[in-house]
């Protein structure tokens, strides 16, 4: 049974409750603190998790729709890896410039994400679905190796880049650091929501979509640039993060069916809820030994990924 818009309303209400819970949870103890002081301290981290999760969910839903491939996810197809490589190149090559010009960080991440997206389209779009995924995995591995190489060559940025590789940047969220990526997430997210109708047509195949009036070149261009923007902003907020972009659209489709008018916004809501849950569990479940959101997400996401792969193929 499909839930329709009720799932979106319910999901959004659930996300608000989760956010309230996340603001009240912390290693320093529960509650909002005196006059909401603790909640205020946690707010940037919670806002960053919500924005990054929403961008990841939307990016995943868009990539799956664009490539007509249920296994597409910017985390697995290397787009986040490319964003991190772009950041690593800037932080390794010109750290002074990077920290003096805050806009340069999302810009570098965007350049990396766009580069990988271009290669992904060029090398993996045609052919069976597995080709896209394998091409993406290859690009991801290459980008990760490039990031590690830069981290080794640039000792002053090594710890930061390694933390980014493990999706452990939410802990350093501060208003100054997150404001630009948040704005980019909001802008790219809003623009991605407008792709619902052409993505619905594309589900019928490229030729059917084109003859139904869909401008494929324009759709591809917009989807790739906007997904790269969302990936870049999310990477600046959280580092590299797998599974959110894969799981959120699958959960959304299971709840509301395949119409992108609902799948895209619900993927954003569920992506935000997944990442926020992972981050909150990571910092509150084991006091004294916090786990990164990416580690918790992998612990929760890997079994779900296997379940989805089995469900899809059989």
């Amino acid at each position, binding site marked *: 049974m499909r839930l329709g818009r009720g799932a979106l309303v319910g999901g959004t209400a659930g996300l608000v409750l989760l956010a309230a819970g996340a603001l009240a949870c912390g290693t320093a103890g529960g509650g909002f603190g005196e006059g909401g002081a603790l909640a205020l301290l946690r707010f940037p981290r919670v806002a960053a998790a919500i924005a990054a999760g929403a961008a990841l969910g939307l990016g995943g839903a868009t990539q799956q729709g664009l490539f007509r491939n249920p296994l597409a996810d910017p985390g697995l197809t290397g787009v986040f890896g490319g964003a991190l490589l772009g950041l690593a190149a800037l932080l390794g090559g010109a750290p002074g410039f990077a920290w003096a010009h805050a806009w340069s960080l999302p810009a570098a991440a965007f350049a990396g994400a766009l580069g990988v997206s271009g290669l992904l389209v060029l090398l993996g779009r045609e052919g069976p679905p597995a080709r896209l995924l394998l091409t993406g995995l290859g690009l991801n591995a290459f980008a990760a190796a490039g990031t590690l190489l830069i981290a080794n060559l640039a000792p002053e940025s090594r710890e930061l880049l390694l933390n980014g590789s493990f999706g452990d940047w939410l802990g350093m969220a501060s208003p100054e650091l997150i404001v630009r990526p948040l704005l980019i997430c909001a802008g790219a997210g809003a623009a991605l929501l407008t792709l619902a109708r052409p993505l*619905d047509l594309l589900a019928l195949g490229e030729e059917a979509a084109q*003859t139904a009036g869909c401008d494929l070149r324009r759709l591809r261009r917009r989807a790739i640039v906007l997904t790269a923007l969302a990936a870049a902003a999310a990477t600046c907020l959280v580092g590299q993060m797998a599974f959110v972009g894969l799981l959120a659209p699958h959960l959304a489709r299971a709840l509301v069916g395949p119409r992108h008018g609902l799948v895209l916004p619900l993927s954003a809501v569920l992506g935000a809820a997944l990442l926020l849950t992972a981050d909150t569990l990571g910092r509150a479940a084991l006091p004294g030994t916090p786990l990164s959101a990416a580690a918790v997400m992998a612990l929760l996401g890997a079994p779900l990924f296997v379940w989805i792969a089995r469900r899809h193929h059989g």
Partner: protein
Amino acid sequence: MADLVLQFSRVAYERSGRRLLDGVGLSLRAGEAVALVGANGAGKTTLLRAAAGLLPATTGDITATGLDPRTAAPAAAARRRIYAEQHPSCAWDQTVAELGALGGRPAAWKDWAGRLALTDLAERPLASLSGGERQAAHLARLFASLEEPYGALLLLDEPTAALDRGRRETVHAAVRAWAQAGAAVLVATHDEAWARAFPRVIALEEGRLIADGPPAAVFTAGLVCAVWAGSPA
């Protein structure tokens, strides 16, 4: 001519060194229903795809609903044309009703779903349907999307290949009704009896147009051999 809906002039298309369309010239006016026949590989689907603007590499002149479909903006070209693929597909597990909603005209879809015996299947996922039911679901979406038949171009590639008798007759009647309402309808088919019921038949062989006229003139003994058995005329 104001009522010329589709025109091909010296249209050719080559792929992997093989000439799939070879100097094809034809025209369809508003109100004409034409059957396109030929053996497997004769070029029927290629011709329909060229008319739908899906083969930008074709040479020669093509005009469809007043536009060159190879260069026209997709939205403008689609406004007065529908193209039914031979093997439609769907990436996600849409229900019949969700597929129909893509046409954007719910009342028209409901009407077509009724005519093609899909009403009871509306909430069923496409993956759970038979091949014929799926083909009918895709046709209902396409047919419902056509707003104004006069001057429109319908390109149908073996639209009844998988359909049962009832749904087949519905499609036959629809083609006649659209032509009467002023649409130009070009239908590729291997159904000889249906092709003989059209007022005009175009026959292709190895990418060349070998006959164009009323069925009695086109279906000569030699041509029937070439078209239906795939052997030389």
